[in-house]
C-alpha cells in the first residue's frame, strides 16, 4: 500500500521534507511513529500528533489511511 506522509511546521525542519510517499506497511500508527523516529532522529525532540485521512488519531489505531499527517504542537491564535 502506498501512503503519503506530510510534515507540518517544525517537523519539516526535523525531517528536511515537506512530504514523501512510503510503500512499507505498518500495523498501527504507533509502528509508523517508531519507524519515523529512527529514520529522523530529530523527531525525538518534538511532540507530534498523527492524523490519517484528515482525522487526528491515536497511536494504537490500525494504520489504514493513505494520507498521514504529522502535526507538531498547535500554536494558532
Amino acid at each position: 500500500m502506498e501512503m503519503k506522509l506530510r510534515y507540518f511546521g517544525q517537523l519539516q525542519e526535523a525531517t528536511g521534507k515537506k512530504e514523501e510517499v512510503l510503500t512499507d506497511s505498518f500495523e498501527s500508527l504507533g509502528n509508523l511513529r517508531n519507524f519515523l523516529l529512527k529514520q529522523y532522529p530529530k523527531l525525538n525532540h518534538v511532540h507530534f500528533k498523527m492524523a490519517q485521512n484528515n482525522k487526528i488519531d491515536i497511536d494504537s489505531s490500525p494504520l489504514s489511511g493513505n494520507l498521514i499527517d504529522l502535526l507538531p504542537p498547535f500554536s494558532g491564535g
Partner: protein
Amino acid sequence: MIRKIKNIFIEGAISPKTIAESIGHHQHKTKIGAHNIFLGQVRADQINGKTISAIDYSAQKEIANQLCHEIREAAFSKHDLSCMHIYHSLGTVKAGEICFFVFVSSSHRPPVFESLSEIVNDIKEKLPIFGKELFEDKSHQWKVNQ
C-alpha cells in the same frame, strides 16, 4: 439545522476593514442586541535581544476546518447565539496586525460573554495551526501557546 463546514482561513493579516464589514453585515439582523469580538494581534516580543517582526502561519486546513466546525456546533448547542464568525490568518502576519478574529452575537449579553472565551480557547488548543515566529534578522523560532 445542519451547517456547512466553513473555511476559516484568510491569506495574510485580517484588516480592520474586514472586521468593520463583518460588523456592518449584522445591521439587518435586528434581533441581535449584543456582539462580542475577540481579536488576536501579533506581538513584537523580544527574545534574547531579538524582536519578532512577523508570524508565518500554516495549518492542516482540512482538519482545522472540521474541528472548528465541531467547536462552532457545540457552542451553538450550548449557548443562545444568533451568529458566529471565525477567521484565522495563513501566511505572513506582521507584528501589530491581526491574525485571529472570533465574532459572536446574541439577543442579550450573557451568551456572548459565556461563549467567546470558550470558543477562542478551544480553537487555540485544538486546531492544527502552526506559527513560525520570524525575527528581524531573518532567524526564526516556533511559536508555543501557553
